[in-house]
């Protein structure tokens, strides 16, 4: 038992070392640095399109890299691929399990994936020769629900699960390449940066973790939230991460300084954040909340500069197109709205 006590002491001392090292580089704050920057003027986005067709709560949506098509998942048991310019449904894919919680569009546009309470990630080929969209692979191994999935390519996908792990899969063989273990609570969300070398995960242990994909290791852990992290995204410069939590706040963590730089909160906001996405320059952070709204934050000044009000139920998902032209919100009210 002596060894256990020794290890416990060493863990505590390492945690203190990390806290001290983070403090040692705090020669300024983000607030100081932007004291001369003017707050963004009020942002008023309008609903340009409403995508109607789902018959139950929408849990997830993801834009295609072409900034025109997007996929949404609803507990009506369907994945719908939409042409957001025309509002036409390109594909309506019936799912084996209606308890879907996430969906993803492959960067190539060739596939979509989804998963949920079935603990599996199902991959669908959109470009089959016979024109029918069907299941290409079912990635099964998680022992908990699938909360999020993101393609690295047509050959690889990363999933996050209620079993507290994230997994990198080989789609062709349907096998797990790497298991990323370390979170001590359900993994709720993940995001991949443009270089595909790392990914970040947010979990119910209140932390966000940065993982090295090839090494299979957690490189950094970010704390500070006081409740589950439901949403996570990379800041467009790839050097920072934004999170949204049940503690009603969003936070920005800088990867190179290894710490939180700012919190986006307001005493009037008391409900959880469900989804988060940065605008193209990162100056705006759009976050969906349980109170049916989406708040728009000035990321540098940490002030609320706009609201997207239009849904009749919780905003469950949000996404900004790769070209930055529009943002899409998906809601439990069964509609998706396109705003700009």
């Amino acid at each position, binding site marked *: 038992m002596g060894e256990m006590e020794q290890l416990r002491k060493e863990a505590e001392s390492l945690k203190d070392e990390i806290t001290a090292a*983070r403090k040692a*580089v705090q020669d300024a704050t983000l607030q100081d640095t932007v004291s001369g920057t003017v707050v963004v003027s009020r942002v008023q986005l309008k609903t340009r399109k409403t995508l109607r067709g789902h018959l139950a709560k929408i849990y997830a949506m993801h834009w295609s890299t072409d900034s025109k098509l997007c996929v949404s998942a609803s507990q009506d048991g369907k994945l719908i691929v939409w042409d957001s310019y025309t509002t036409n449904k390109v594909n309506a894919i019936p799912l084996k399990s209606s308890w879907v919680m996430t969906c993803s569009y492959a960067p190539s546009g060739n596939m979509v994936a989804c998963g949920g309470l079935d603990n599996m990630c199902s991959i669908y080929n959109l470009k089959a020769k016979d024109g029918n969209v069907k299941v290409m692979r079912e990635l099964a191994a998680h022992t908990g629900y699938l909360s999020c999935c993101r393609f690295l390519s047509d050959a690889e996908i990363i999933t996050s699960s209620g079993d507290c792990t994230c997994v990198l899969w080989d789609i062709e063989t349907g096998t797990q390449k790497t298991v990323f273990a370390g979170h001590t609570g359900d993994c709720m969300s993940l995001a991949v940066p443009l270089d595909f070398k790392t990914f970040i995960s947010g979990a119910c242990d209140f932390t966000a973790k940065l993982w090295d994909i090839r090494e299979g290791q957690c490189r950094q852990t970010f704390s500070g939230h006081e409740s589950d992290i439901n949403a996570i995204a990379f800041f*467009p410069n790839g050097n920072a991460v934004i999170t949204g939590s049940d503690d009603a706040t969003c936070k920005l963590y800088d990867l190179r300084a290894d710490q939180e730089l700012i919190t986006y909160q307001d005493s009037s906001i008391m409900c959880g954040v469900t989804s988060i996405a940065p605008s*193209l320059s990162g100056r705006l952070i759009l976050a969906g909340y349980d109170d049916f709204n989406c708040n728009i934050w000035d990321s540098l000044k940490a002030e609320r500069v706009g609201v997207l009000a239009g849904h009749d139920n919780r905003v469950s998902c949000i996404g900004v197109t790769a070209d930055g032209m529009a943002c899409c919100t998906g809601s439990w009210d069964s509609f998706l709205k396109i705003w700009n």
Partner: protein
Amino acid sequence: MSNNNASSSLAVAYRAVKQLRLEASVRRIQVSQAATDLKNFCLQNAHKDPLLMGVPSGDNPFRPPKSCGLL
């Protein structure tokens, strides 16, 4: 039985320490530099951020060039 529990708790504790050592060894930059880089990125890219700058209706793929009837 208790031996197995003890050795697996030890393994978990050992892994936790190993992980903390890795995270402690991360090279950190000054917050002033990180914040400045963040600010500069936002300001330099602001002009091409459609949601920030607004999209002229002619260039908006989500808005038809002619006005539609009220839906």
